[in-house]
Structures are given as C-alpha cells and as structure tokens.
C-alpha cells in the first residue's frame, strides 16, 4: 500500500512539474508578454552562442526537423518534421535526404525551396561567398561533404562517414533555415523566416516584438497574436514585473533557486518549474604553462573539489554531479553512478580525496610551508564569480593560495585565447544533449571553443568511433569511456550541472521547459492564453 501511495505521489509530482499545461480547447488571440534578461547583440541565431538570441528569435524560424516542443527530454525519438516532410538515411548511412514541404513561404512572400537549405548550410560550412560574422557551430558540420539538391523540394546531406548525431544537430533551435535572398547582415537586424511569428521590431535595450504569421504553413497556428519581450537587465525589477502581472512569463530558465522562493511567496498562483539545463560549471586549466603543465598538480586540483558543497551553497542542494555529459535522468549520455564515482575526485569521501591531493602537491614540491600562488580568472558575472570564490576557498585545503581575477566581458575570450591565465572558472552550455556536439566543440584538437587547446589524439579517435557508431548501446559505452578519460586527464574539470527555474501565469498554456537543453524549446507556435 505504502509503495502504491509513493508511486501515486511520484506520478502526480511528475505531472505537476512536467511543465506541460494542457487545459481545454486552445483559444486564439492575445500577446504573450515575457521579460528578456538582456539586450542581444543581434537577431541572427546562427551567429550567436547564447540563448538570449534563441528565446526571442526562434519563433520566427523553422528547421528541417525539430525536437518535439512538448517533450522535455530531447532525443532522436522526439525529433519531428518541420520544413521537411520526411527524411531517410541511405543504406551506407552516409547520405541523409529530406523531402521538403511545398506550401511554405518566407515572411516576405517568396517561396521556400531546397536552395534555401543548401545556402544555409553552405554558409555554416564556410563554403558560401556570403559569410557569417561569427560561426560558432562550424564543427557541427565537419562531417558534411556537401549539401545537394534534387529539384526544389529535396535536399541531401552527403557525409564523409556515418554520423547518426547529425539529425539531432539539425533539430536544435540553433539550426534554423535562413533565406537565400536575404543577406546575413539583414538577418542580424531584420530577420525573415518561415516560422509562426514575424519579426516586427528590435529596439536595443528596450523590446523585441513579434506578430502572428497569418500565412503559417501549419493551418490554425499560431494561437497567439504576438509575443513581446521587454528587455529588463535588472533582475529585481524583472521579477517584480512578473509578480505584479506585467509579464505572463519570466525569461526561461533564468529564475535562480533562491529567487524562486520569492516568486512563490509573492505570487502563489504562478506556475514554476525547475529543470536541469545542460549547462555545466567547470574549470578551464591552462596546461600549456606552469604550474598546471604538471599532471600531478592538475590531478590534485580535481581531487580537491567538494562538488556537493558548491551545489549546497549556490543552489540549496538543487544541482547535479556529473562528467562532461549531462547527468541522468535528464541527460541521455550520463555515466552510471558507480563508474562516475570511480573517477579521482568524484568519490564521496572528500577528505580522503584531499589527502591524496596533498600528497600529489607535495610530490610537486608544495606543502604546508610552501603554498602555490595562483590566480583564478573568471568573468564579472555572478554565476561565474560565486563558484570561483568557493573554488578559491576549497583550493586552500591543498596548499594552493588563489586570488580572484575578475575579467571584463570584453576581455574574457581574448585573454583565454592568449592563454593568459592559470585557472579559469567557466560555464559551458550544451545546445544538444549529444556527445558529438559536446566532444567536438569543447575537446577536439583545434576547435575554436576548445579554450584550453586540450588535444589528445587517442581520445580523438574515440570521438570519431562513437560518432560513427549506429548502435546506441555500443555508442553509450564508448561515450562513458571517453567522458571518464576526459575527467581523468583533467581536460576541463566539471564541478556541477545547474538547475534553474522558469515561472509563468496559470493562464499560459502549452509551455514546456526542456530538461536537457536551454536552446531548443522556444517555437511557441501552439502556446495559448486561457483568458
């Protein structure tokens, strides 16, 4: 009986926090009002690496395929057709062919064709005369030889070798199809898409306005007349705006755990969910210069971390411990617990780990009488600064005296690129819960976002091996092995994976917050207001 009750409670809890609120027949009309956390630098999703761009501009576009917008956990099984009616892999798994819809128009009335698919990916692969100013996801398409078209309504991706993950990468909110007839410069200021909402205006530091696309190819959608984002960088003002009813929804995954309590106490009827968001807080180690060119000191660093303490102090216990891949149950590729705990520094006995760390430090010539002096560099943003301070405190336990080196945003990446740091406190957001995205982007030799220039040819071979593997279970085992090796190599020690909150008023229906990505769930075509 007790177990039945427990099960019932568990089911109800899952339903309550699933984030999907279906109630009655959808109603058309109304403007969804959301505050935006900051003023994005551009409207071009392809040129950005922040969901400050995805959230307001994803509703303008369509992808070939998209993760189901109402299943919180993105996976290959939840991929749905969008501009593509169907897709098929060739027998050798080296060609992925999409049959395209014939009833799609760009917001300026021009027809959508396979040429648009080709030119979007030609630009992403750097093969087009028209260039993006920044192209952060170029590595996603390094296995694509070319994109070919067969008539106006068929496009094929021809690969150098099989890459099952390609479909997931195409389903990300980061992979909209751009129109050939609009320049990248125009897309930064006046984006044109095929999606459920049309761009109206973007006033920097003020607002972003979208209006319903009456010619949307999905008949009857969208339900909303428009979406308005008011840009409020001051979080206190923004939250006050939400609890006072000025906004229907907070900026997604932007409500911190302590703030969530405030929201619930001031506006008890608000619907709030807390989800992991596949953003890890980690340490970038400059292993090309002393002292961290010494593997013993790198290992001591990994052994010194008390991950639970970080999560307790920063999120009142609401966070997850894992490796590179997002922890289970939200993450699909997480190492089993026993395997994770076998990695140095992940064992539950923190004092025992630190004792081992101190021995390594002594081997490297440091001890109670000779402390290692370093700087921990990080960005001048609270989510970076706060864990850096905790890290500095924890490093004291292994004879390391660290000083906080706060770096202005404009200087952060140039500083990292110059290798002008010892340790850096960093956040890594993964747009797709897939090893190909994470491994190639963050750990492959020569990748632009591999900040530490970590380069291990043996692991690189394993990257390719798992990437080409079509058997999901075999692939998982390879991924776990790689993830373990990355942690043992102290390539980019992962401290924790955060969880964050999103709140909306109960009359906002059909909102789902993704549990293994902060980048993919903002199409909003079937969101409606029960007013």
């Amino acid at each position, binding site marked *: 009986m007790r177990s039945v009750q427990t099960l019932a409670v568990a089911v109800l809890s899952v339903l309550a926090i699933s984030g999907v609120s279906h109630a009655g027949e959808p109603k058309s009309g109304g403007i969804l009002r959301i505050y935006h956390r900051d003023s994005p630098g551009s409207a071009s999703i392809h*040129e950005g690496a922040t969901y400050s761009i995805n959230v307001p501009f994803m509703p303008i576009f369509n992808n070939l395929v998209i993760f189901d917008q109402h299943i919180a956990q993105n996976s290959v099984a939840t991929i749905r057709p969008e501009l593509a009616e169907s897709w098929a892999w060739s027998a050798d798994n080296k060609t992925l062919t999409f049959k395209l819809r014939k009833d799609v128009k760009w917001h300026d009335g021009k027809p959508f064709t396979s040429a648009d698919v080709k030119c979007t990916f030609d630009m992403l692969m750097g093969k087009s005369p028209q260039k993006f100013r920044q192209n952060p996801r170029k590595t996603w398409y390094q296995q694509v030889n070319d994109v070919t078209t067969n008539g106006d309504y068929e496009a094929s991706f021809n690969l150098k070798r099989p890459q099952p993950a390609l479909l997931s990468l195409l389903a990300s909110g980061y992979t909209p199809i751009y129109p050939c007839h609009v320049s990248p410069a125009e897309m930064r200021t006046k984006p044109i898409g095929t999606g459920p909402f049309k761009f109206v205006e973007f006033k920097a530091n003020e607002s972003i306005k979208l209006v319903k696309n009456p010619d949307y190819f999905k008949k009857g959608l969208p339900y909303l007349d428009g979406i308005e984002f008011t840009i409020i960088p001051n979080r206190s003002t923004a939250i006050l705006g939400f609890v006072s009813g000025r906004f229907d929804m907070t900026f997604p995954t932007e409500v911190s755990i302590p703030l969530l309590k405030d929201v619930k106490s001031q506006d008890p009827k608000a619907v709030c969910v807390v989800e992991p968001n596949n953003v890890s807080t980690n340490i970038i180690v400059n292993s090309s210069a002393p002292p961290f060119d010494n593997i013993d000191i790198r290992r001591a660093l990994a052994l010194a971390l008390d991950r639970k303490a970080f999560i307790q102090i920063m999120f009142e216990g609401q966070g997850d411990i894992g490796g590179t891949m997002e922890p289970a149950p939200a993450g699909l590729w997480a190492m089993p617990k026993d395997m994770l705990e076998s990695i140095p520094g992940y064992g539950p006995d923190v004092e025992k780990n630190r004792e081992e760390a101190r021995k390594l430090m002594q081997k490297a010539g440091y001890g109670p009488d000779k402390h290692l002096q370093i700087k921990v560099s990080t960005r001048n943003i609270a989510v970076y600064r706060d864990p850096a301070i905790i890290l500095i405190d924890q490093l004291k336990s292994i004879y390391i005296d660290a000083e906080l080196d706060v770096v202005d945003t404009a200087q952060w*990446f140039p500083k990292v690129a110059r290798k002008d740091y010892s340790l850096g406190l960093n956040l890594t957001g993964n747009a797709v819960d897939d090893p190909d995205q994470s491994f190639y982007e963050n750990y492959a030799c020569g990748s632009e976002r591999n900040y530490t220039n970590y380069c291990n040819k043996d692991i690189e071979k394993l990257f390719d091996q798992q990437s080409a593997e079509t058997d999901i279970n075999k692939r998982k085992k390879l991924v776990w092995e790689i993830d373990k090796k990355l942690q043992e190599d102290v390539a980019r020690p992962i401290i924790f994976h955060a969880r964050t909150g999103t709140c909306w008023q109960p009359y906002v229906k059909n909102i789902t917050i993704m549990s293994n990505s902060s980048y993919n769930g903002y199409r909003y075509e079937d969101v409606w207001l029960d007013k």
Partner: protein
Amino acid sequence: MFAYIVRRLFLMLVTLFGISVIIFVLLRVVPGNIVDILFDAAGFVDPADKASIERELGLSQPIVIQYLHWIGGLLHGDLGYSYVSEKPALEEILPRIPITARLAGLALLFSAAIGIPLGVISAVHQGSRLDYVLRVVSLSGLSLPAFWLGLLILMASVSMFGTMPIFNPNPKTWLEAFTIYAVPAMAVGFRSAALTMRITRSSMLEILRQDYIRTARAKGASEASVNYHHALKNAVLPVITVIGIEAAFLIGGLIVTETVFNIPGIARFLVEALRWRDYPIVQNLVMFIAVVVVVVNFIVDMLYAAIDPRIRFGD
C-alpha cells in the same frame, strides 16, 4: 557683460573640443572593443574574422583618422551608425533624449520645490522639533542610494497595489505623463532635494545673522517679509549653484533610476552602449551630455548676474 558672454561662449567651444578628444581617446584606451564583445556572444575569438569585422567597422584605421571622421561627420549632422543595431546613431539617440530630459527636469523641479521651502522652514525654526525632523529627512536623502530607494518604491507599489508603473515613453495626457515620471523623478531627485534643503538651511541661517536683517526687523518689517523678501533672495545664490552642479551630476542618479524603473532613456542606453563598446553611440551621447553640462553652467552664471545686481561681469 557682452564681452563676458562672448568670452564664455569661446571658452565653451574650447572646452567641448577638449572633451571630444578626451572622450575619443579614453574610449579607445578601455580594453576590448565591439568585436571582442560580438565574439563573446559566439563563445570564442577568431583572429581572422575579428580583423575582418574591424576593417568593416573602420576600427582598423589610425585613431586620428577615426577622430577626424567622427568630428567631420558631427559638423555635418552625421553621427555615424550604431555598431550593435546597425541603425543611424541619431535615430537611436534622438527618441531617448526627451524621456531623460523630462525625468531630469522633473527631478530638478522636485529638488527645488521641496528642498528650498523645507530648507527655509528648517532655518527659520532652527533648533525646533520640526528642524530636527527635516534634518533627518535630508540626511536620509543624502544616504539612500537611488537604486535602493527605487527598488523600495517598486516593491511598495507591488505589495500595496499589486502593480508596478508601466513605462510609456509617449504619454497622451499630462496626468498620464505625471504619473509615469513622478515616481522615478522623486527617486532620483530625493538626493538633490536633500542637498538643496541643507544648502538653503545653512545659507539662510548665515543671512539671518546679518546686520541688515536685524535692521529690517528693527524697522518693523514682518517676519514673513524678513524671511522671504530680505533673507531668501540673498540666500538663494549658493542654492542655484548647487542645483546647477546637481544638474550635471544627475546623470549618475539617472543611470540607476532608469535601470531600476526600466526607463528607455539616454542614461541607461549609455551604460548599455558602453558595455558593447558601441563607440558611435557612446561618444555622441557623452558629447551631448557634455554640451548640456557646459550650457547649464553657462546659464547658472547668467542667472547669478540676473539675480544679484552687485555681480558684474566684464564691464
């Protein structure tokens, strides 16, 4: 007087030229430029692409050429293009000026309308309970940071009325305009009001001890006539100076107030533009603020002459 005005106008031009050079050089000395920040949104820096964007934006040119280009454009009314929005800088700046001007004007009005009478009352009733209360109010005005006061006002508004002021930059009626601007203006003007009150009080106290005040009283002038006709007229000079200086310093308070109340004025826009190193916006906005400050100083000096006939310039 005429010679003085001409000399002051010439000095104003020299000052503005100096400011333009300082703004321009300082902006380029600040580490990082717009391209670094653009790459920040992409999560890496690509040196080749960075150089290409710098060429596209004209940032690879020598600083002197960039300066001459800016000043040349300015003289022709061309403020350049915002690097972020890629719209003309004038189009970005112009609609925001009236918003901040209304807010600043109302804050200064609030400062004078509250500060001067309360300062006079405090001085006239020196040592009374009322004087102590007013001095505490003035002290709190000087101690409370504008952002804290603003947040308190917003929180009180939400908890008491369940709503918060919705900022509409284009109010249709005077009443609507007043309700929109009054609260943030009070938040930003409270400090100036407190300062004005203190200066008025001390200036009045000093004047009230003068011989001619005693003479006026001895001649049988009423208290009101002594206080408001004889004393206040002379006590108000330093107050005008303070209000003039406050007008220049107001921009600091406006930055936090516009941020807290989410008002799309030039002060908040300036901070955001600085964050992006959006040079065309920042240098034109700072230049505009410099012009306002220099002109306000000029007006204050002219007011001095108008109010106190003993003061003669250049004659």
